């Protein structure tokens, strides 16, 4: 019997800190495309909608939904009037400036609606509602809304990219790319903390439902079918060996953040003593033609567990697998297969 609870070398568990991020693209279409192209090349466009001019432009009448075609694009600005503003005293890395600035609703000359943009005013004292501001184009414009900013005054801007002014018809902006993401930080839930700490000392912990006695591994902290919570008193240990109930050979799809390149097996295993399967177990060293439902497998713990040096770099509250931080591989036990019919209700 291995020591585990209150055992001194149980792993330190970090707070969950995960950044979900993807380089999404945007197809700009017949109106936003010319608008972004204009920002890059030195003009600001709106659309004429009836007797009004809407800027930033839209593909439709915002009041009725009627289609507004690119023949209605008109140039506005380059100066305008601040309708409303707010001061950003402490910019973050996502802001257009690393020093304090204003976000303002700017009604450009010739437009009837306001555009939200950044005003580099120097200090909050320079900002007033009704003040005049004028656009400044960036030399390295890519065809995005951040190709420009505004400054107080009426002095007309220089054209962007002066060195490139002789270029013949640069490509219009048709598709843009944006790295969009969110950083998620949350504490580990108590049942999850106990599960991971158990793993760090070589024990697999589940929870026995007080409603029907079924053992959930890993537990969600509640029995979803009977809708009852489970507590530390319901913790039980299960074996580190079990039966394959389901598997897939994965041909990795190449996407942002994907590190897998070669096919490998993903399987679900019903551990002895458990009533739910652990899923997403990677199998790298058993040939696919020898892999099957009903196969008996033994988990081989890694050396870090024996040394009490498990490091959990990537923890979460939701995954239903076991972390590779604690196992080396899974090995066939040599026992006879279990009849697939007997595990068919565990093939998730």
């Amino acid at each position, binding site marked *: 019997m291995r020591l585990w609870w209150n055992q001194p070398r149980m792993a330190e568990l970090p707070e969950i800190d995960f950044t*979900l991020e*993807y380089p999404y693209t945007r*197809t700009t279409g017949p109106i936003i495309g010319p608008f972004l192209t204009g920002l890059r090349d030195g003009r600001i466009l709106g659309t004429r909608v009836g007797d009004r001019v809407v800027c930033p432009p839209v593909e*439709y009448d915002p009041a009725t*939904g009627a289609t507004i075609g690119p023949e209605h694009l008109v140039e506005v600005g380059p100066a305008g009037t601040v309708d409303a503003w707010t001061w950003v005293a402490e910019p973050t890395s996502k802001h257009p400036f690393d020093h304090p600035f204003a976000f303002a609703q700017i009604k450009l000359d010739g437009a009837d609606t306001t555009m939200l943009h950044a005003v580099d005013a120097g200090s909050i004292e320079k900002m007033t509602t009704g003040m005049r501001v004028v656009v400044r184009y960036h030399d390295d414009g890519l065809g995005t809304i951040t190709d420009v900013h505004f400054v107080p005054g009426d002095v007309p801007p220089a054209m962007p990219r002066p060195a490139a002014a002789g270029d013949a018809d640069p490509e219009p902006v048709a598709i843009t790319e944006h790295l969009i993401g969110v950083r998620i930080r949350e504490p580990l839930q108590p049942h999850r903390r106990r599960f991971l700490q158990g793993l760090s000392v070589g024990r697999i912990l589940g929870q026995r439902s007080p409603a029907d006695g079924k053992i959930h591994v890993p537990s969600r902290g509640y029995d979803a079918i009977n809708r009852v919570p489970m507590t530390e008193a319901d913790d039980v240990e299960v074996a580190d060996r079990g039966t394959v109930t*389901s598997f897939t050979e*994965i041909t990795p799809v190449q*996407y942002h953040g994907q590190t897998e390149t070669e096919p490998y097996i993903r399987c679900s295993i019903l551990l002895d003593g458990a009533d739910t399967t652990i899923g*997403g177990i990677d199998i790298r060293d058993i040939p696919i033609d020898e892999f099957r439902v009903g196969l008996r497998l033994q988990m081989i713990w890694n050396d870090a567990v024996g040394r009490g040096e498990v490091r959990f770099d990537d923890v979460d509250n939701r995954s239903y697998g076991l972390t590779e931080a604690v196992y080396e591989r899974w090995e066939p036990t040599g026992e006879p297969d279990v009849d697939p019919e007997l595990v068919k*209700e565990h093939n998730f």
Partner: protein
Amino acid sequence: MARPCAVVGIGQTQYKRRRDDLSLDGLVREAALRALDDAQITFADIDAIVLGKAPDALEGVIMPELSLADALGAVGKPIHRVHTAGSVGASTAISAAVLVESGRYDTVLTVTYEKQSEGNATWALSGGKSGGQGAGGTFAPWIREYIRRSQAPEHIGWMVAVKDRRNALKNPYAHLHLEDISIETVRESPMLWDPLHFLESCPSSDGAAAMVMCAQDKVSRSPHPPAWVLGHAKRTEFSSFPGRDTVKPQAGVDCAAALYREVGITDPRRQIDVAELYVPFSWYEPMWLEGHLIAEEGEGWKMTDEGATALTGDFPVNCSGGVLSSNPIGASGMIRCLEAANQVRGTAGDYQVDGAKVALGHAYGGAAQYFAMWIVSSEQQPEFN
């Protein structure tokens, strides 16, 4: 008692790998304006809008029902958002029907879409982490379990892949037009998730689909025959629990049983003329024929094998080419519902089933855990014998 509701307008975009000519606003408007045009009405005639799509992470546009409201003429009108993973297209159609049936709104516009080219679905379904198994990797073991239980021969999956793609050749909106597809090309295409080959899997598409539904006293305003919504059902279950049958999920059985009971259907195979089932991977045709009580257990694959599900069979399935030929995920379920409506309105063009009166539209989502189905008919109260 719910009041009658009918589909009077249908609009679809061209489905493509990338609609590089349209913004997201433009994409949903293309479908919406075509549905309004089909119904011969305008945004001004719409009382409420229901929008559906799959997870926001697919395009990274969070709460698109807000940013798309103006583009859909929703100023001063209620707009609703529905989300039930892959089944969302059918769930959205049902939500729109309920708004009419309840008596609250007379005319409802419903729109669903996906612009898959702007993100990556497998990345999104993997929670943004490396090593995701994707939808095919999730379903493959359940397909193998179906094959084990039913003793179905391996060519069944290939047959479905060929049939649906050949049907798609008759559908000008379909993403895939694979002129040369055959049993051999499917069998020889790369194995993605055993037993699923590349050509047994759905494509990744951009596209949108829309319908106009209205109450009985507004139907005559529109020129084309209506498709009456005879009934609908939605059911859900957890993705994983001890005792779950992933091959024939109880929620799918219950959903179908509730639907047939509501409509008065006692023998679905005989009383339904044509079906559009959500089949993103070939084997789901026989699996849903059994899972939704159209065939006895172990008999679904025989319907496929005998040609019963072909365009000329006694129970045609996915005459439009199905999800295997076009998959703008959020819209895919609505396309099943509107293609069912096309069949009973007689507006299905080259893939029209002669004399179709009663049609089933179906979608499933998540880990085969969300189900949404409806039955439409050319008649308001057809007699089932």
